[in-house]
């Protein structure tokens, strides 16, 4: 059979151009800071700004914490839904889709409204208002990011669990004396490696570029920094966009490296 053909190649080239041309445009633009010469000055200036490093590192820290929180929240939840509550799957799926429907600004206002006051029971202050401290606000930010990343992380974990025989693996581990904690940590999590890496990558990308929550909670994150930079400068934001894109590709490459050469968990050898 003839492979490809004119239209096949046409659509491949069209899609490639559609994807790459804006990137090439942004990259070229980022090199044109000095008139008439192509240079990396925009990159040098962007990297020389201590605010860049501060916000970038802060957002990276928040992203890591969000990934940990998302995994800790969603893996046991989705595992339990698969194992014991399969009828609840549509409900849980619906809940995880809520961040697509409710704008981030509503979430931000909701968080501020609920957590701006201390927790007082019977006249005693049990918990100070989280928004009154840096640590408390950071926790609120991670909680908000966890909600925003939930649709992606949930689907990644769900897809990973669908690919393995959760019930049988769990029962096999139970019959060997394993506790629920051991089952999740030593049997389920290692077999979700690729799925979790995908979810983590998406979470990372969302958190590093997120603007609304970080702005309203007044935290020094990379999203607001990039926004402010874009309002005052032209070339540096383009340079940083290219850097962000490069980081995403590096992360995807790492996922590929971590998962290559192994068959899917459901794959078994021949019956011989």
């Amino acid at each position, binding site marked *: 059979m003839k492979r490809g053909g004119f239209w096949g190649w046409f659509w491949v080239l069209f899609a490639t151009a559609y994807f790459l041309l804006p990137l090439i445009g942004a990259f070229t633009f980022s090199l044109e800071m000095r008139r008439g010469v192509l240079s990396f000055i925009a990159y040098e200036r962007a990297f020389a700004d201590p605010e860049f490093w501060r916000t970038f590192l802060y957002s990276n820290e928040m992203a890591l914490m969000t990934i940990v929180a998302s995994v800790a929240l969603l893996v046991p939840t989705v595992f339990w839904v698969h194992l014991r509550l399969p009828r609840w799957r549509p409900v849980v799926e619906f809940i995880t889709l809520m961040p697509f429907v409710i704008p981030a600004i509503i979430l931000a206002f909701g968080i501020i409204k609920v957590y701006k006051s201390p927790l007082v029971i019977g006249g005693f202050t049990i918990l100070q208002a989280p928004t009154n401290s840096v640590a408390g606000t950071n926790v609120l930010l991670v909680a908000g990011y966890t909600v925003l990343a939930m649709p992606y992380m949930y689907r990644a974990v769900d897809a990973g669990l669908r690919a393995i025989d959760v019930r049988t693996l769990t029962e*096999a581990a139970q019959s060997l004396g*394993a506790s629920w904690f051991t089952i999740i940590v030593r049997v389920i999590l290692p077999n979700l490696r690729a799925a979790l890496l995908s979810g983590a990558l998406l979470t990372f990308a969302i958190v590093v570029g997120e603007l609304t929550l970080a702005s309203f909670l007044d935290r020094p994150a990379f999203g607001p920094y990039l926004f402010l930079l874009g309002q005052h400068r032209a070339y540096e934001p383009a340079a940083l966009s290219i850097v962000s894109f490069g980081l995403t590709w590096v992360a995807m490459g790492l996922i590929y490296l971590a998962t290559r050469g192994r068959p899917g968990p459901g794959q078994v050898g021949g019956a011989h």
Partner: protein
Amino acid sequence: MAFLDLIHLKKAFGVRPGSLPSETPHLRRVSATYAVDDFNLEIERGELVSFLGPSGCGKTTTLRIVAGFEQPTTGKVILDGADITNVPPSKRNVGMVFQAYALFPNMTVGDNVGFGMRVSKKPKEEIQQRVKEMLGLIKMPELENRYPYQLSGGQQQRVALARALAIKPQVLLLDEPLSALDAKIRVELRYEIRRIQQELGITTIYVTHDQEEALALSDRVVVMSAGHMEQVGKPWEIYNYPTTEFVAGFVGTLNQLRSRVVDAPTGELDYHGQHFKVSGELPPGETVVAMLRPEQLRMGVHEGENQLTGKLISLAFLGAIVRMGVELGEAIVTLDALNERRLALPKIGEPLTISFPPHAAWVMAAG
């Protein structure tokens, strides 16, 4: 008291365990939905008992109750004198082998086999020694560092068996362990399982829907149907002396001739105008069903035996035996002739007389 005692086990899905008293009108009303209905069995130490039956008969549910993955609605599981009915599966010390192998894909063969011992925090040297011992038992010592995906189905199931045995369980449970394998490996592995079970003297419950497997492997067979125990006995008892029509029909091939009683004291019956005799007492009624195994029928006329004549309508050469279908009244009677080189086979469409001694047939009341 037996080593493993299953007492009045009942399992109704959708009903909370213990929520129904054992004798109430309410219970009787829902009894039609029981997956397991009043299952009673005593299993001795070192015995291999098979649960045999068609899909949905409750055999796997009963096994899962023993494993602790299902809670019985009523009834008890007593293991070595201790009531383990409410003990979680992880605390039962019961090894289980699944149809789908269930090896942990992220672990090597050695790690899979040693998993149970690592979970119970056994010393490293002891784990290594036990893993080697188990891999030797399943004759796969060289595959310790392979991953499950690098093994064939038969090898994976051997590893699953070694993993279940490594924790030195009090009882070994096998849930249709050979169903996913091809025929040749299934037969090989069946004898391997029996060898290992006898070598270790481990009490074992084996669930299967394959009658040949159950008959070949077991000390005793429990035939189940619709949640009930139909018959419990040694394999030859189940095959030669089935006590219910279901067992007679499910285990082995069976010819059933609905016949009229001509003379009850002599056991003389009439089947579509042809008379034959059976030994033993006849059940009451004018009509009975005579049961005959295909291998107990012989071609041609044999002196002193019953003879029935019909028309040969099918003939299949199966290697060791030749299976013939003989149209006889309303029934197609199956006859198995042992193959030999000089066997003269009749032609399809020709009349064929079949013979059998009176004691070869047994009789049940017509339902």
